[in-house]
């Protein structure tokens, strides 16, 4: 079933499979909605580990299959059908995504920032996001001072909590693993986290207040991420090569 399909291509009847990512149902049939490879995913309610694709995934992005497929409790026996894109520029921050943002400016009520990456994928163009003062941390919300949590230029790991207002997404750092991951001190040195709310400049030894992200959880995540990233890096180069030869 590892075939290339184009948008609008009829894949199967909707009684055979459950329509999933990259597909839609129309008049009892499942159609592809993107250009890519069609896969079927065996449903297995018991364990996550048995969740395998029927084909050796050549696109290497099996991680993008949402986990919620396994949580469905219906008696349905059908497998899922998905179409995976080869190239994925159309990423948009969605609720629940962990995003990497850069703080642009701060005021006592909020820190406004630019969303640079969704997960590990860099966005082509940035989206606006806002971390409101009540979303900085989970405890002692009324004592939070934005000024002591973020500074312009900081790189922050945050979660999208809502689509927000007309200008920006609302983000939150109210989890241990979320917060400032990279910050520079006044003299321009990269600061080292010393506690959950302080970072130290290695040059001047001055301490500055930040809402620091707990790094050790992120560390293991990063390893996983690197694999997929490399895959994408290769793809990117391929694209370049190809277009060079045109």
């Amino acid at each position, binding site marked *: 079933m590892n075939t290339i399909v*184009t948008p*609008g291509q009829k894949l199967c009847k909707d009684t055979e499979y459950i329509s999933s990512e990259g597909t839609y149902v129309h008049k009892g049939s499942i159609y592809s*909605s993107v*250009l890519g490879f069609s896969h079927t995913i065996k449903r297995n309610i018991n364990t996550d580990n048995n969740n395998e694709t029927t084909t050796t995934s050549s696109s290497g992005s099996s991680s993008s299959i949402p986990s919620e497929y396994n949580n469905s409790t219906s008696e349905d026996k059908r497998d899922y059908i998905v179409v995976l894109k080869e*190239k994925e520029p159309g990423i948009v921050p969605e609720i629940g995504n962990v995003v990497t943002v850069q703080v642009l400016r701060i005021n006592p009520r909020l820190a406004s920032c630019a969303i640079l990456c969704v997960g590990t994928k860099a966005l082509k163009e940035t989206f606006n996001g806002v971390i409101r003062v009540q979303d900085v941390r989970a405890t002692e919300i009324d004592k939070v001072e934005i000024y002591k949590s973020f500074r312009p230029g900081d790189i922050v790991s945050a979660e999208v909590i809502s*689509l927000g207002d007309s200008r920006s*997404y609302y983000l939150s750092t109210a989890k241990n693993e979320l917060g400032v991951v990279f910050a520079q001190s006044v003299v321009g040195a990269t600061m080292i986290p010393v506690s959950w709310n302080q970072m130290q400049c290695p040059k001047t030894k001055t301490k500055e207040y930040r809402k620091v992200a707990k790094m050790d959880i992120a560390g293991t995540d990063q390893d996983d991420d690197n694999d997929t990233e490399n895959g994408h890096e290769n793809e990117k180069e391929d*694209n370049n090569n*190809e277009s060079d030869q*045109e």
Partner: protein
Amino acid sequence: MKIDFRVTNPIATSIPLDYKIYKQQQEQQKQNEQQQTISVPVTTTSEPIKKRTNRSEEQFRQIFMKTGVVSQASGSAYIEIENTKVICSVHGPRASPKTELFESAKFSCELKFASFARPGERIDYMESAKEKDLSINLRQSIIGAIRLEKYPKTVIDVYVMVLNDDGGVLVAAITAASMALADAGVEMYDMVSACSSICIRNQSISNGSNGSGSGNGSSGAAPKVQSSILLDPTLQEEESKDSLGCVVVAKMPSLNEITQIIQTGELSYNNTIDGIDLCIDGCDKIYSIMKQNLISSLEKQVSKKLE
């Protein structure tokens, strides 16, 4: 007021006319003067349509397509229908400066002609009414095919540039835009393909009327005009005075739904229906070319990656 900062020549220049035509007109004028006293003013008249030599009336010109031509865009496509050359890039889904729609993406299209795209005078850099018109038609044709609800709070922009216009600009633009959207990985219900056809007065009659220089005033309104329908007209055919009208059809062939029919000119009911039928067949053919192209481009990418 918009101020154009672009380079301008302080001296007004013009394009010289063809001496050949001038000579012909001079001769014709002499003949006319012999026949009647009223002199016909010297104007540029388009030549009568030459009969198609290299293809039949229901045949396409050669089509060439390629995706991924603009490295900076999310998706892009380039299409050549012989001498009609169109490039299209898609930006987005990207953040909109001010969101109006929360549930779905905003979709906008813009079509521009390069200043040298058409024969004759240069095209102004400012957006003309024609470009605006084509942009709207392009948007209308494609918007129904895109799953905009998948991309809330974002904008998808399609930009089309016509590099060389030799008829069928809208067809090329619609085809290029849907190819580019597919290339960008934007989720769609189906790709839109388009096709145009033209209805022209039959050669023998038009030649006769042309020769006498009069007597064709009521030909459009006449119920029975000898006419034939040509698929995929060139610019010369489109702008010829023998053309009665034009039909452009945009269609989602896989779902078998038509997204847009544009009919211009004075066409009889039968002619219109015939034109549409011809176009629908054409759309399916173009669709298969589009599909093939996309599949082979993806295959190429994958094989490169495996190497």
